[in-house]
């Protein structure tokens, strides 16, 4: 089941019992953010939240935590709501192989219903903006799919980027924008600023649930997020042409904001409570001038709470970080079985791999650090054997406790690159990185006493199925 817009997905969440409508009047602050924060503190399979009675607003519709549980993430991919997380990641990886799937261009985008242009642009009149965390410098758009093009190759569909970046509303028609240097839009901006030119940009809000997943996914520079959305949806992604920039934007967006990043300008931004569980800010960031806003009648404003994990952000960028790393590693090392990169967008990753020969697992760890995403993340890698499930943390802890001889199995490499938001970096953007090799040494690495491992009995799998069946039938 492929969703063409946010509204149709909200309907499905509703039918599946995964949408909670909060109809009592709430305050914009702190209620909206505190409720979304609380979804991560009430156990598994928290619902999305929908608010339509917010004090002072007459027409606010706010959706939060849309991806914020494994049940919701499964439904976003069209899977049954109770699909285990490891199976969701495996299905995601299977669908990846269909990439690229050409998008489908449509003409009748619903966001063409309403427009503000030039001096009449007032984002506060379109969006019920609000603050998320106490120390945030203002109100943010933090779940947008932002579209930009390579100024040197503007007709290249694959180099057209769709990404999610933090965006602070600093005026009725002005935004502060954070392009992390490792991200594609920063390359577009650099090329434009070297020529002294503004960079046109389209910011789309309230998208179908797969669009949000691909926008936060670390893909190669010339790979199209729309073609990946088609692969993941199992159907071409519907796109439309944005009226001012001419960029390709999602057909089903609630709101499309167009304008330019003003060349060579920086303005104070933030702080903003980030996915790292820490604030970052007090830095001078690029500025966007908004020239046109297109929006559906009665738009739904989608926002995402993030702060101390886990929050919706961790569900949203969990599987979509695991799968690119898995694919990139497997391209050279088919021995790699599974990658769990669900911690802080892959600042730490756990990789299970077979060993070609002694020392192989450490090489896989180093390769993970040098993938495109690894250059800005992957500061800790735990390697486990091929029969250890990296999504099963008790098993991973067992492997670390039983297999690691710290003197030889913990490797620290100084002064490597990491995104500037990483709280432990020193200076910002530079960190040491660590490999913990918790695999069983193989020849010619003959260390340790691992010759007689206790494995599951051959009959155990059969008994597991039998016990599960008996338990199910008992109900």
């Amino acid at each position, binding site marked *: 089941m492929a969703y063409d817009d946010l509204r149709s997905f909200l309907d499905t969440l509703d039918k599946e019992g995964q949408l909670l409508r909060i109809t009592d009047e709430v305050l*914009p*602050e702190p209620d909206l953010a505190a409720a979304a924060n609380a979804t991560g503190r009430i156990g598994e399979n928290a619902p999305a939240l929908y608010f339509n009675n917010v*004090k*002072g607003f007459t027409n606010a519709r706010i959706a939060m935590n849309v991806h914020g549980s494994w049940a919701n993430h499964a439904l976003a991919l069209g899977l049954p709501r109770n699909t285990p997380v490891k199976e969701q990641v495996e299905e995601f990886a299977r669908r990846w192989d269909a990439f690229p799937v050409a998008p489908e261009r449509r003409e009748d985008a619903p966001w063409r219903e309403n427009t503000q242009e030039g001096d009449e642009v007032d984002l506060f009149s379109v969006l019920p903006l609000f603050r998320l965390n*106490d120390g945030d410098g203002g109100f943010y758009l933090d779940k947008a799919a932002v579209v930009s093009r390579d100024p040197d190759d503007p007709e290249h569909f694959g180099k057209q980027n769709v990404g999610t970046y933090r965006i602070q509303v600093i005026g009725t028609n002005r935004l502060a924008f954070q392009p992390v240097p490792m991200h594609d839009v920063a390359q577009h901006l650099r090329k434009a600023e*070297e020529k002294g030119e503004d960079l046109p940009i389209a910011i789309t809000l309230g998208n179908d649930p797969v669009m949000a997943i691909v926008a936060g996914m670390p893909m190669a520079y010339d790979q199209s997020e729309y073609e990946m959305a088609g692969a993941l949806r199992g159907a071409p992604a519907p796109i439309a042409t944005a009226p001012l920039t001419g960029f390709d934007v999602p057909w089903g967006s609630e709101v499309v904001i167009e304008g330019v990043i003003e060349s060579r300008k920086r303005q*104070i931004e933030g702080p903003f409570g980030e996915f790292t569980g820490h604030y970052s800010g007090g830095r001078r960031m690029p500025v966007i001038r908004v020239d046109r806003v297109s929006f559906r009648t009665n738009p739904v404003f989608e926002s995402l709470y993030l702060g101390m994990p886990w929050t919706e952000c961790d569900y949203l960028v969990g599987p979509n970080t695991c799968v690119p790393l898995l694919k990139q590693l497997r391209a050279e090392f088919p021995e790699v079985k599974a990658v769990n990169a669900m911690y802080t967008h892959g600042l730490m990753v756990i990789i299970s791999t077979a060993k070609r020969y002694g020392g192989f697992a450490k090489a896989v760890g180093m390769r993970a650090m040098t993938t495109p995403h690894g250059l800005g993340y992957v500061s800790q890698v735990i390697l486990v054997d091929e029969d250890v499930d990296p999504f099963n943390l008790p098993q991973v802890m067992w492997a670390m406790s039983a297999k690691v001889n710290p003197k030889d199995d913990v490797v620290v490499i100084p002064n490597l690159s990491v995104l*500037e938001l990483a709280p432990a970096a020193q200076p910002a953007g530079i960190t040491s990185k660590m490999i913990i090799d918790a695999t069983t040494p193989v020849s010619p690495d003959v260390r340790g006493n691992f010759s007689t491992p206790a494995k599951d009995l051959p009959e155990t799998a059969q008994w597991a199925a039998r016990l599960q069946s008996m338990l199910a039938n008992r109900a």
Partner: protein
Amino acid sequence: MSNLPAECPRCAFETVARLATSPVPGVWDVLQCGRCLYTWRTTEPARRTRREAYPENFKLTPADIANAIEVPEVPPLLK
């Protein structure tokens, strides 16, 4: 809605502007500091709206603003 406050809760700058006002008249305003761009709604808790209750960790000084680094750095112009 009401009269504008005398100073920014975060940096104590004395020029504050109204960015938005509630669609239901008289419920709240969204205000913004003219220097540090801190933006707040008048109905938010005191810890976000009042200088004396604003957390020390998040206060900004003129030096903090002046010395803030650029991210990303503005690249040199190509000749």
